[in-house]
């Protein structure tokens, strides 16, 4: 198709690509722009802030240098001789620190740990299950395979009521440890089918002869999995982990059902939703928080773009 393209074609192509990029990227630009604007500037349709304002980011990251004055009445109370010098200092210190205005770092850490645990457990379980379904032969295998396919497509919202009732029924919902365990298990099972599905498809593309050769050399099946299959699948395993991680990182439904009253353990989606209703005149801060939530995914995406895009087509992709 080495046809020489006309100028009209080039202009059209350019316009179409520009329109496409405008559509895809505009919301991100809007978020960035509003996160940098002062309140009086919000109604200004221009995307460029009249005065650039970093306060929202500083506040979220606890970097505001503004000295907060301890209210007079608290000072009077702290003079009570029953309060020791250390206690007094600790209270004042805590008051003056800006860290817990909106503990963004803490929420990020919560979300990261939960998502990471989900990704690791899910990928590990899925590797063995997928290998079993893809390579080994046994009665009922196709039923198991179809079941995985089926549960892969059952949305969390259909399981919301029974899972909640199960957690209440066995007494897990009453305290934070039980709640976190419930939530982790739910995240694992929400990501497990897609992980099995993606890995299963991938394992089928690896020639059987590789393992057979290894087994002729005296390796057992298990050893072959660890020495041949897993090293060969490293990019795919990372992609699957990335998908599981993102699913958990984004999850709002179950987090809101289980974690709402445990503020210290909020994940980012829940924390942002709460932040939105916890302050007046919030747009700049909520947009800054949006940018910061986007960042880790963006970084991971840039680094692994190549694999991820191919993983998306391989898996049919759970959302």
């Amino acid at each position, binding site marked *: 198709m080495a046809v020489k393209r006309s100028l009209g074609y080039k202009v059209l192509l350019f316009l179409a690509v520009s329109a496409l990029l405008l559509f895809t990227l505009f919301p991100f630009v809007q978020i960035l722009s509003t996160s940098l604007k002062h*309140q009086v500037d919000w*109604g200004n349709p221009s995307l460029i802030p009249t005065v650039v304002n970093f306060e929202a980011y500083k506040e979220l990251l606890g970097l505001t240098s503004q000295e907060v004055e301890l209210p007079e*009445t*608290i000072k009077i109370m702290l003079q009570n001789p029953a309060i020791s010098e250390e206690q007094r200092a600790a209270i004042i210190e*805590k008051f003056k620190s800006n860290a817990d205005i909106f503990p963004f770092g803490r929420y990020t850490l919560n979300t990261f740990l939960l998502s990471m645990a989900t990704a690791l457990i899910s990928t590990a379980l899925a590797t063995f299950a997928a290998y079993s379904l893809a390579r080994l032969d046994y009665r009922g295998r196709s039923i198991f395979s179809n079941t995985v396919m089926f549960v892969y497509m059952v949305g969390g919202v259909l399981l919301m009521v029974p899972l909640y009732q199960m957690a209440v029924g066995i007494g897990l919902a009453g305290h934070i440890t039980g709640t976190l365990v419930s939530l982790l298990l739910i995240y694992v099972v929400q990501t497990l089918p897609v992980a099995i599905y993606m890995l299963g498809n991938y394992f089928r593309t690896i020639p059987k002869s590789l393992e057979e050769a290894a087994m002729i050399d005296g390796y057992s099946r298990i050893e072959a999995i660890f020495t041949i299959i897993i090293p060969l699948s490293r990019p795919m395993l990372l992609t699957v982990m990335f998908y599981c991680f993102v699913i958990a990182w984004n999850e709002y439904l179950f987090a809101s059902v289980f974690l709402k009253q445990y503020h210290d353990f909020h994940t980012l989606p829940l924390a942002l939703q*709460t932040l939105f209703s916890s302050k007046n005149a919030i747009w700049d801060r909520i947009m800054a928080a949006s940018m910061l939530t986007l960042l880790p995914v963006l970084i991971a995406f840039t680094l692994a773009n190549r694999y991820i895009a191919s993983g998306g087509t391989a898996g049919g992709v759970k959302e």
Partner: protein
Amino acid sequence: MQPAIKSLKSLAVTLGALLLTSSLVQAATEIEFWTNQTQSDRMKIIETLASTFEALNNDIKIKVVPVDENEMATQMAAAAAAGSLPNVIEAGSELLLAFGEEGIVDIESNGKMLQKIGKKRFFSGALNMLQAPNGKDFYGVPMHGWIQGIWYRKDWFAERGLAAPDTWENIEKAARELTDKSKNQYGILIGTKPEGYTEQVFTHFALSNGARQFNAKGELTFNSPQMLETLKYYQTLAQFNPPGPQTWRARDYYLQGKMGMFFYSTYIMDDLALAEVAKGSLTSEHFEGLSGADFDADLVKNTGFVPVITNKTAASYGVLQGLAALKSTPAETTATEKFVEYLYDPYAYITFLHMAPGGMNPMLADIPDHPNYLKDPKGIFKTYGTDAIKTIINGFENIQTFTVVDGKAFPESGQIFAKQIIPRMVYSVVFEGVSPEQAIARAEMEMQDLIGR
């Protein structure tokens, strides 16, 4: 033998002492306090008050949990289901009455706390709003309260020769005049989204028209000609609202100079003054020629406040926030009582109220005269003047709500509030084309179902 016994004895004593101290350490009672002050700067003050209390009472730990006021009812239900109810909550009087009726409030403990703090020190109007139907128990201790009114642009009113928005007629006329949708400018903000704010604004109008939920005999009289008239008037006013369903959040448009009037509690005093302080650091030349935003450096000076609205009768409306101890273990109850009594210590109490000067008004009659009270950290009382503040506080004695009729509280009204029947009715009329007659009839039916009458 002797020394052996002796050493054994001393060993036992040491062990005992060890056990005792460790059990003492473990015995630190943790109580959970749910507050509806979710704003982070207020949380900070509450946390500091709690830490100070913990420093004074080494055996008690306080866990402060902020809960959005619109979610309080459902969160309580979920917590009750999971068996993780808090020990003490801060909530509006309507909700406290509803919780009281559900039997989760510890009436005895509340009575004890009132006695300790001094029942006579409270404004009597405030106490009435938390009284149980038996006339002697209380479902909570009054903590603080705000009154609601219309805040408006005095300068815009003067330019157009409009009278202050204190009657239905004046309000409608001004709303009409000040609405200029082509300039992205709106006459008024009233609540139209199905949530608490809408109920508050609607109630204010209903009261000023003599409309009530219950009569003195406790019969449901919601579907009345007065209520219908109010709803129709409300529908008319909604035309001058910013587009679509709105709630208190839209008051940002007022701060941006795009709105003429808005219903709000006295909480706005804080925000108005602060907005001005914040803007002080940016001079208006930064924003010169800015289209879409009208920068106003004199917003406090140009803002007027009307707390009493009149149609058939003059009405002022407000919300009382109370503290209620919930049923807990004896150790937790004792700790809760200590904590609540501590919160009414003048310095702790004033610290609490200063989180939102003007918004959180004292319910103890002797506090306004306390030397520290008028010296709030942000200097807001100074901006508005002491007279204005005292007027607001005294206004609380005449507060009306749907829950109290002739000095008697009807907890059913709280249950109705919790289910948001009134705001949903308003929404259906303004946005779903339901006729006011039909909507009121349906709302009354829902209320009847709920209270079983």
